[in-house]
């Protein structure tokens, strides 16, 4: 256990930023996890732009169709983070045995388990849980679309007669083979060159990307996203029971991983549940503090008591009202820092949370500026955000959420060049 932790300048840069010290340069992440990535079409366009080997890009996260940013492109962009993903993806099949697939005219690579059919009525692409085409499909991509969405496979719900166990399928202890794979992948990433960013155990508390159970052959329980939101109000006892078990299971798995890899991990994503909307929130702070915060506190408490890992929380939208509660629960890093949402002014965020919360994101707006602005607009916004967020550390550059399909390559390049300019070329 306790793999040595080599530290080169790039990893040190991230560690300094996480420790709220001024790093030598502003650290950069793209592709570190499933909420800081790029659509596969964007990755392909960047490979072309930088004149890298012309080869189909691997779809490393099929739900959002994110492209794998390989070492050569990481180098070209100047990325300071190395990702470690679990080998099984969101649709429940392994990212192995890659094969070609034509995606809106673009040659990409998908795992063997990526099995699809075309819906004859709508022309949309259907994908199957665990690659099992005898099961009901669990995802749908509209004709000419860019991502999958969950197919809700749930009947009528009787809120008076629910069993938390139904929503806990898949939350199991890792097998020895899975632990071996995680250990090997972390060892491979732990070169010292870059900070190790791990997405290895599902400890998400009510993330609506996971609620429908798109990896399950025949999910039970509350799987309709609207019903899930109602559940949080109508049956908090059931939600607590689910979260208790998710955290129990998560801690047990993380303890077993820690016993093998020690402090080789730098950053661990713990949850992607969105609490903010564009202008408001999905719940009150009071509800957050009663329903979510105790569970985050228990999870982060174990992590901080037993490891050096930093905890990374994703929450889109107008989330600032929850930051104090998140900090109190032991969350170290917030993403995607959606400055375009209400109450998320960058300067206010920096002033209010300096030294207490790391902003991992917020670098450029992916709803307006990056997809629809000019390269000049992108440069201006990136430089402005860097000027605000970078002083004193506590900032890792990333766009606000994944870089979306159809984003012009020249704008993505303008973003990368602006960070380089901020870093002194």
């Amino acid at each position, binding site marked *: 256990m306790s793999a040595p932790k080599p530290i080169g300048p790039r990893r040190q840069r991230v560690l300094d930023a996480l420790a709220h010290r001024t790093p030598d340069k502003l650290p950069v992440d793209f592709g570190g996890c499933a909420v800081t990535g790029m659509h596969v079409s964007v990755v392909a366009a960047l490979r072309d732009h930088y004149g890298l080997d012309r080869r189909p890009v691997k779809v490393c996260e099929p739900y959002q169709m994110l492209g794998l940013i390989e070492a050569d492109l990481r180098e070209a962009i100047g990325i300071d983070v190395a990702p470690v993903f679990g080998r099984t993806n969101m649709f429940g099949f392994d990212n192995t045995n890659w094969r070609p697939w034509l995606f809106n005219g673009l040659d990409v690579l998908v795992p063997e388990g990526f099995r699809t059919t075309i819906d004859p009525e*709508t022309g*949309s692409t259907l994908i199957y849980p665990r690659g099992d085409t005898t099961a009901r499909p669990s995802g*749908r991509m*509209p004709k*000419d*679309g*860019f*991502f999958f*969405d969950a197919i809700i496979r749930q009947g009528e719900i009787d809120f008076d007669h629910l069993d938390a166990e139904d929503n806990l399928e898949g939350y199991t202890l890792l097998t020895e083979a899975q632990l071996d794979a995680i250990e090997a992948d972390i060892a491979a990433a732990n070169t010292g060159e870059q900070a190790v960013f791990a997405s290895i155990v599902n400890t998400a508390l009510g993330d609506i990307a996971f609620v429908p159970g798109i990896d399950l052959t025949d999910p039970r329980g509350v799987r309709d*996203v*609207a019903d899930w*939101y*109602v559940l*949080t*109000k*109508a049956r908090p006892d059931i939600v607590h029971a689910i979260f208790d078990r998710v955290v129990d299971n998560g801690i047990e798995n993380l303890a077993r991983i820690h016993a093998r890899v020690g402090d080789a991990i730098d950053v661990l994503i713990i949850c992607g549940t969105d609490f903010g*909307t*564009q*202008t*408001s*929130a*999905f*719940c*009150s702070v009071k*509800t957050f503090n009663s329903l979510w915060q105790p569970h985050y506190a228990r999870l982060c408490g174990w992590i901080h008591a037993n490891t050096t890992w930093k905890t990374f929380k994703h929450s889109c939208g107008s989330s600032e009202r929850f930051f104090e509660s998140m900090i109190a629960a032991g969350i170290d890093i917030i993403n995607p820092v959606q400055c375009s949402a209400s109450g998320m002014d960058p300067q206010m965020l920096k002033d209010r949370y300096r030294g207490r919360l790391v902003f991992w994101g917020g670098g450029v707006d*992916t*709803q*307006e500026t990056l*997809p629809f602005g000019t390269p000049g607009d992108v440069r201006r916004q990136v430089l402005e955000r860097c000027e605000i967020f970078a002083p004193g550390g506590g900032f890792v550059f990333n766009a606000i959420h994944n870089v*979306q*399909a*159809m984003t012009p390559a020249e704008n993505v390049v303008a973003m990368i060049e602006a960070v380089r300019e901020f870093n002194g070329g």
Partner: protein
Amino acid sequence: MARCEALFDAIVDGKIADAQTLVGERLAAGEAPMDIIAGTLIPAMDEVGQLFQDEEYFVPELMMSGRAMKAAMAPLRPLLAAAGAVPAGVVVAGTVKGDLHDIGKNLVISMLEGSGFKVIDLGTDVTPARFVDAIRTHQPNILCLSALLTVTMLAMKSTIEAITAAGLRDSIKIMVGGAPVHEKFARDIGADGYGVTATDAVSVARDLVSVA
């Protein structure tokens, strides 16, 4: 047209079974369907909207009240149709082509229905041609277009262009909404109204109908 406090509370508190029972009791007591709606149900949904604006209510509460409203309306709808009652307005709503998200759209629909509008829901991934057909078929006062994704909001523009090309643009008002949509975008693509939230959409719809 007195307000029934128990029914009002059932809607505001999102109690489906209570709402159903109480509407049944009001009908049995001889209250006219339109009086139940105008006197109690619409004020209750207005109260829900206000609580949402004041951030005392959030998405779950909005959904629960919407479901209670829907349950309350179920026995009233056929009676209204039989009596030839005129709704506050007719709305066709749908999520635009390429986008499968419907939570926001469904919230808007539930708030509009709770405010006396008749809504025809076309679902998700609706092509411009289907919107055009629906306008011809239902002759709505308002068309509501929803999109959650940056990449699909552009389909709002092509939908409005298709409606214009079909010669139907002057016959309806068009509202747009969804997370990435904003006022300037709405103006740029030629929409008549933009709702920031589901409750905001009701105010916009009321304004559009009153000036139509």
